């Protein structure tokens, strides 16, 4: 923290600074190792033998590598089918969330209309009320829409849960975009739709990445919604539901459970690594006010 804005100093000081920086890297690395320790341990344990799991204790490094844990977990839990479902579910959720929240965020940030304040107030209040203790009203609604036991229902209910957060982020982001841009486009003859779809939306790339990433993480880890809305069609289950059943069915095959955890975790970590450079910029845009 103290290295942030040092003035140029004479030479002997410089080496001291280098030493300090070295210490900083060491601290960051050590902290990171502790931070990731549970993952490293799970990763290591996923490669251990059952006996190695018990004798190994907290040591993450397996004495011998049992790659077969992965193939066994993969086939036993039918992960390939769940994987396809999860990708469809997450993609659908991301698209629905992005479309609905970017449009809503835009009009809430850049236009004025009767009822806007009331709506924002109502949305704010929902943040305080715990939802999800009874699924019955939503279940009845989905059933009346004849969407039960389809992936659509899962996508819709999951997306609905992310509306408030995404809308607020887009709202913040669009407020910061220079108004001159819109005005210029309007002078050029662009209408309301053109301004949104061709100027504002393309400009909000980082925010699309951010909200999309959050929606994707949540969908990927969502358990109760996919379980309940596909209850009669287990072949539509997602990875997290499959993982839950897998844990239940292998309650003491812990090395397999660890392998399963790594399998469900890896794709979402990769998605994060790919999207993350946009992600902070997007947030930075949203909070700049």
């Amino acid at each position, binding site marked *: 923290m103290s290295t942030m804005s040092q003035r140029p100093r004479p030479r002997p000081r410089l080496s001291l600074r280098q030493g300090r920086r070295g210490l900083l890297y060491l601290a960051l690395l050590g902290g990171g190792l502790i931070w990731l320790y549970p993952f490293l341990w799970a990763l290591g344990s996923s490669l251990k033998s059952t006996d190695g799991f018990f004798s190994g204790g907290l040591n993450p490094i397996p004495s011998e590598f049992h790659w077969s844990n992965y193939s066994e977990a993969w086939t036993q839990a039918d992960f390939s089918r769940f994987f396809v479902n999860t990708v469809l579910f997450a993609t659908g959720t991301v698209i629905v969330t992005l479309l609905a929240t970017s449009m809503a965020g835009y009009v809430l940030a850049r236009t004025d209309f009767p009822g806007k304040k009331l709506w924002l107030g109502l949305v704010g209040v929902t943040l305080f009320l715990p939802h999800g203790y009874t699924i019955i009203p939503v279940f009845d609604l989905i059933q009346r829409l004849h969407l039960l036991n389809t992936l659509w229902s899962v996508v819709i209910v999951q997306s609905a849960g992310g509306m408030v957060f995404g809308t607020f982020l887009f709202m913040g982001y669009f407020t910061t975009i220079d108004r001159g841009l819109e005005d210029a486009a309007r002078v050029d003859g662009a209408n309301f739709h*053109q301004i949104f779809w061709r100027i504002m939306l393309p400009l909000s790339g980082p925010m699309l990445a951010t909200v999309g990433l959050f929606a994707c993480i949540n969908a990927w880890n969502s358990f109760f919604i996919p379980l309940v809305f596909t*209850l009669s069609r287990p072949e539509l289950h997602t990875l997290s539901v499959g993982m839950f059943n897998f844990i239940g069915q292998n309650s003491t095959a812990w090395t397999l459970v660890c392998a399963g955890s790594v399998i469900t975790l890896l794709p979402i970590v990769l998605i994060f690594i790919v999207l993350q450079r946009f992600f902070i910029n997007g947030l930075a845009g949203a909070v700049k006010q």
Partner: protein
Amino acid sequence: MTSSNVSRRGLLRTAALGAGTLALGGGLSACGSGSPSSSADALTYWDWYVTQAPWVDKEIDLFEKGHSGVSVKKTTQQNAKYADLVALANRSGNPPDVFMIPQVPSVAEQVAKGWLHPLDEWATPAWQSRFPEGTFLEGANVFDGKVYSAPLKGSGPLYQLYIHHGVFKSAGLTNPDGSVKIPRTWDEVTSAAQTITKKSDGKSYGLGFGNADGIGVLAWWLDLFVRGAGAPGGAPTGAGTGLDYRVGKWTYGTDRSYADFLELFVEWKKRGFFHPNSVSLSDEAARAFFERGKFGMTVGGVWNQPEWTQHKFTDYSLVTLPSPTATPKGFYYADPVGNGSFAAVSAKSKKAHEAFQWLDALTSPAAGRRWVEDLNGVSAYPAGNDPDGIDSKPFAAFVGMTRQVLRGPVPLVRNPELAGVAPGAPKPDISDVVTGVYTGQIKDIQRALSSLADKKYQLLSDAVAAVAKQGKKVSMSDYVFADWDPTKPYTTKKKA
């Protein structure tokens, strides 16, 4: 920037996004509304049997071979979510053809709500006669004279004390002939736990359990130890169970056995006999720890055994009803109500006849014997519960114990109108109280026990009053069997 410049790029983007949405839409609906072609003519079947799955799968195989053209599609749901999922499936009008009857709501309510298909069309007196006498019981699996379900399981002692031979031997707890010295009384358990804890130098503990899953593991200990001390109600976790039928009340506060055992339990803890991680271990972890000799004794049910057998760990014994003295003064009692209803045919099933055939196969004597041979538990058919021919010694011991299960009073036999009584569960319940006592959060054991007994009685009276309000002739006296001797078999008489 000019609008034409913007538009071309924007259009491309929109088009790409649109195409993506369409493609995805195709994918979603293909998965969504696509015809369940292959499974359309299969019977759908739901259960929560995980460790018992090999048995179910074998039964499915045999059934499909015997009934060409009929296939069974099994879905094993998570135990913790099972009741909710069955309720929602019925709400959606698309329940499975055959399902294990969930524990909530009461079977009476499931019948009243029209979930279950009456079986009387097929369950003729001749068919019924293959089951032991007293199997079909109005209010349990028969309603208004119509049969709705049939039993799979028989009654065994619910919990046992498991004893790890390796740990006992290395602590020197052996008889002169080299065999393991099996503790049978409270004092013997205490001294064995002490010896193991002392001699193993931190490698093993005398006792251990895994309480993390919230399945009431600590109530198992209380239940197992107080019965022999003469508290025939024990401490089962089901709502409305565990009364001492001699008085028709819960006797947690009045029968000294409860407080006596809990004080002993706390003493065991204070003296360091328990594996220190017991409260936060999962039941599964505790099972694995026991297998590896991290503690010498634990309390559990027969469900422990298949996994240990699978791991080739059979060097243990089990005892039931450890008591203050060598002779137990209370026992386990047969449960014709709970065991009587296993699975049912859905009222919505379009293949009710095939569905019944599947239920028939699952509850046949041959399937029952295979249930026993696969070490799952005891069969509803006494003939199937023969320890001979079972390789696993511990399991054969368990099967042998079914003979110690007594016939006890059954309020439902006396008054079938009690079927609709569905009392709530108090909070904290008995397993919470034992946990609180163990962790030291509850200091006044006697007061906690008395107030729980009162609360349970209040909840049951409320539930009885609610049923009485519907015009049924029920009262709390239906739960009192003053002439019952808990050490002898008892035949419940129908109310005149």
